[in-house]
């Protein structure tokens, strides 16, 4: 019984195995991105960026049907274009970057839904918005694993400038380094991860597995590396459990996976070891010095 519920889907169906491996890769790369999104106070901008993939993915869908390469490429280009456009708008006007992100993603969402409805059915729209694990093929797996590799190698390469850009951009500028270059390289990696996630999670939910585990981890650890180490297993666990539940109950995989990540978030919020509800309520004896 337990075997049937927990393991049989993976033994029996290739797409479930591929989805499981894909979520492992996604968890490893995505949680590192999520930690930096939080530290850069860019959680909401990341969300806006994920929504902005939609018109690109939709254009890919319009031209190539439900083909992963076409939709992924479209989504990636749309995400990069949005990030660059809002950066440029913020630089050449007095608009704050979060406002320009919001403006860009609202435009992108409206455009995307319109484009999908030009050709697709309501089911196609649901699949693009909320994910469809049935479609995880070898190509999708390859895309996700390459993304995870590129993310880890890329973040390791730009780690120092990115960290300094986060906490003291003026210092970087005084050293003659263009911090915005690393900002955009990071945004590029973030977009790549959301593209990798949208097959299983959909464009509306792609950020969930990136951001929620990282937020949860911030209730347990304080360094960049330890937060990432804690976030990654949480992301993988939510993905694995979410896949099973969505398989058995016939629910869209995106929301189910994200809800399990939310459970980790709520649990950490309540029980975490730093600034959680538990540490607020318990009043330990203060130290002598």
């Amino acid at each position, binding site marked *: 019984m337990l075997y049937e519920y927990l393991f049989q889907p993976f033994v029996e169906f290739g797409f479930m195995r591929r989805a499981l491996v894909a979520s492992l890769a996604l968890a490893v790369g995505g949680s590192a991105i999520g930690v930096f999104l939080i530290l850069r106070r860019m959680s909401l901008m990341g969300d806006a960026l994920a929504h902005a993939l939609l018109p690109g993915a939709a254009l890919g869908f319009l031209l190539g049907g439900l083909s992963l390469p076409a939709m992924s490429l479209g989504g990636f280009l749309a995400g990069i274009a949005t990030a660059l456009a809002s950066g440029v708008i913020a630089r050449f006007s007095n608009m704050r970057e979060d406002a320009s992100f919001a403006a860009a993603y609202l435009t992108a969402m409206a455009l995307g839904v319109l484009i999908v409805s030009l050709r697709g059915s309501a089911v196609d729209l649901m699949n693009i918005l909320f994910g469809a694990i049935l479609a995880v093929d070898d190509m999708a797996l390859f895309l996700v694993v390459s993304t995870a590799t590129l993310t880890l190698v890329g973040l390791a390469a730009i780690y120092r400038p990115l*960290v300094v850009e986060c*906490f003291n951009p*003026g210092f970087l*500028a005084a050293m003659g380094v263009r911090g915005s270059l690393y900002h955009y390289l990071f945004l590029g990696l973030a977009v790549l991860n959301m593209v990798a996630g949208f097959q299983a999670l959909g464009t509306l939910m792609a950020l969930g597995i990136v951001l929620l585990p990282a937020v949860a981890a911030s209730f347990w650890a304080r*360094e*960049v590396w330890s937060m990432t180490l804690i976030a990654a297993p949480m992301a993988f666990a939510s993905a694995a459990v979410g896949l099973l539940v969505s398989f058995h109950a016939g629910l869209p995989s995106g929301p189910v996976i994200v809800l399990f990540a939310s459970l980790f978030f709520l649990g950490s919020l309540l029980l975490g070891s730093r600034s959680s509800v538990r540490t607020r309520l318990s009043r330990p004896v203060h130290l002598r010095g």
Partner: protein
Amino acid sequence: MSAALRLVDLTVSYDRHPAVHHVSAEIPAAEMTAIVGPNGAGKSTLLKALLGLAPHIEGRIECSAKRIAYLPQQAEIDRSFPISVFDTVLLGRWTRFGGFAAAGHADIHDAQHAIEAVGLAGFERRPIDTLSVGQFQRVLFARLLLQDADLVLLDEPFAAIDSKTVADLMVVIRRWQAEKRTVVAVLHDLDQVRRDFPNSLLLARELVDSGPTLRVLSAENLLRARAMAEAWDEHAGACEAPMRLSA
């Protein structure tokens, strides 16, 4: 006395409003100079311009310093970021290892030494969000020490800092001066300027006076500075002052 910095008819503006207006002055090399003036007088803007970080500059800045170190106002740093005291200080050697190479043994040794010099021994592994304002200022001074610059720019180094910390950090500043480095500091405590800084530059968007502190900080000059800073015109027309450069 040679000049470390020469400002020639310098104007720095934001959105066409000048924050520093037609300033010409010299800052002597290997000395301690204070930049004084009311809030909004363009002091921080002047430092940013010296670093090449100001958006729009007219006029000229002649700088003989090869390496410049800069202490920003603390508000410009995200102090909640999870980074340790040691790593923050070590960044002072950025010009040696840049964004990608590893720090050498000498750099690590010097960082340790700088942390001890500012009185923070034992704090190496502490994350910066656990430090007080004064302790964090010591961290930034240790980073300046590692930068080994011949021109040190300090933007309000003693804002919200207790007298013990000020005294400790003044020791560091005086040592820089003894090592023939040029120190330029934006300061608000006029008594301290009179006591510790032989040269001053009094700014109220325009230059009020620059030179020996005792002359510059006269009651008359300070009154003028205050009056000039208050006369800010939101609807000012284009400035038609002649470019004194050509004269």
